[in-house]
């Protein structure tokens, strides 16, 4: 006890005490180790992407299979292919932007109506009735040699309807 006290008083006044330097070094090392461990854990827990699952480029069919003004369910792409009256295509992700329920198309009402909290959306996916906070997400559509293909890898969140996102053949 006495020797400890002597040590600390003996070094007083010097710019950095050896004891403090070592303490700081330990703290920094400990902190780095914690950050490293946290990073490794987070990296380890990242989503595992399995091959052949929903998430790739999916062919929906020929352009002529979809008459203007129709909405067709594409189960393998988890989306609805909406062909607007002017002939443009939108691939609308069926996952409700409110709480993730699958939104079915109501043919008679010409609306998407969510069963969970009764949000409804028009043929472009725009919100007709809240609580959904934004339009339904869409998938990029490419039309190659008359075939409509849907890229399900990257859903696009829309804050509002943008006519530039409609794809024409």
């Amino acid at each position, binding site marked *: 006890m006495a020797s400890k006290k002597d040590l600390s008083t003996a070094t007083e006044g010097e710019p950095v005490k050896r004891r403090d330097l070592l303490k700081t070094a330990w703290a920094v090392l400990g902190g780095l180790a914690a950050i490293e461990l946290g990073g490794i854990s987070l990296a380890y827990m990242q989503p595992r992407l399995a091959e052949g699952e929903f998430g790739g480029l999916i062919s929906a069919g020929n352009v002529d299979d979809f008459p203007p003004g129709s909405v067709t369910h594409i189960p393998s792409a988890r989306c609805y292919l909406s062909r607007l009256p002017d002939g443009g295509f939108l691939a609308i992700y069926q996952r409700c932007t409110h709480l*993730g*329920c699958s939104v079915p198309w109501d043919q008679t009402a010409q609306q998407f109506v969510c069963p969970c909290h009764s949000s409804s959306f028009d043929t472009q996916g725009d919100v007709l009735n809240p*609580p959904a*906070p934004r339009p339904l997400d869409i998938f990029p559509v490419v039309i190659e040699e008359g075939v409509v293909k849907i890229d399900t890898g990257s859903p696009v969140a829309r804050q509002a309807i943008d006519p530039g996102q409609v794809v024409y053949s």
Partner: protein
Amino acid sequence: MQENQSDNQQENMWGRMRQALGPTELPTDDRGRMRMVVDNLVLHLHPAKVPERTLRWTYTWGLGGLSAMLLMVLVSTGVFLQMNYTPSPAQAYQDILNLRMDTWFGDLLRNVHHWSANLLVLVAVLHLLRVFYTGGHRGPRAVNWIVGIIMLLLVLGSNFTGYLLPWDQLAYWAVTVGTSILSYIPLLGEPLSRLLLGGPEVGAATLLNFYALHISFIPISMVMLMSLHFWKVRKDGGLTIPKRAKETEEPKMERVTTIPHLVRKELVFAVAWLAIILIWSMLVPAPLEGIANPEVSPNPAKAPWYFMGLQEMLLHFHPLVGAVLIPGIVLVGLFAMPFYDVGGASVGVYFRSQRGRAMAALAVSAAVLIMPAWILLDEFVLNWSAWLPSWPALISNGLVPLAFLMLGFFMLDEVVLRRFKASLEERVLFLFTFLLVAFVILTLTGIFFRGEGMQLMWPWLVGAAH
């Protein structure tokens, strides 16, 4: 040393084995009884003597002990359930069917696990209420209050992760709705939800993640925190001592030995509750719907019952307000309770005092009058997003109604403060009780008064649409 020698002088091996297990005769005097409590690993969680008054049924209702017992029931039934379960979408649902049809007592085991888990949510909340209303969260007990809330959150987490495992429609959509709420947390929400789900939607990775959390991380944390909770109860001087509202001086501390007074009550209580759970589980099967179908959301799609209050809020507010902001404020308020609910030395009295009792009654009446009226008004009259069409939904359907809500609370508080000259303690009690009853009403509305398309309807019509 001499004693050991005499121990080993038992005439045969069986006698020595029996002796190694512990005392062969029950003690006959208080000294011996106290000794026995101290010497036994399980019993020594208790002190050797306890204040006679804390043994009253009508003070603690045995809620803490019941929670601990339910946890033991859940762990032991859970281990058996694991032996007949594979956490993969291809196998999980079939495993549950096999458990129900082709496994001896499999259905009973599942029912006991299911109903105990649901009962635990209820009992843990009631335990929290008992502690709050008798002032058991104050002073040094603040730490145990916080530990208790963390355990309550773990209980909810355990329930929620377990909810997915049967992989039926109920499970799939309740978890979809529940995890989507997460993604509304600004910045952190989306990555957090992806991490938990292991992808963009509930799928195989989600099932495996939830299974791992449900069978290892959460139960281990629970057992560790429960040990801390018990230890802190002893450290803080045991339970708060009940006294009558009119008693001003500290009650006399008449202590009785733990054996038999406390232990006998605990055993009777535990056996009675085990009987109730068993009989209930034999009569009422745990729900199981058709196999999970990601294409078809059921109508209505409801979260587990303990989250229905939250889901009801989502019908009235933008999700960032209804599912993140308001619950977040309430949770922080709960955690910080011991540090602002101060003043008034009324520990051990239900509702703190006669006036406190009146305040609580006032809060209950106010909530019962205001909440249904507000739900109806918001359902049929208020339409913020239509009235403020050019504003983002977060403001028109979230912050604007929240502002009115806060104003309402402020006015209620003013009334209590000015008209009734309430102390700080009584104001906290009033607001807490109001929020509690409001949450109960929201939960009941969500469970019983929401039918197809989450429309408001009478309870007897809710099931009729199916």
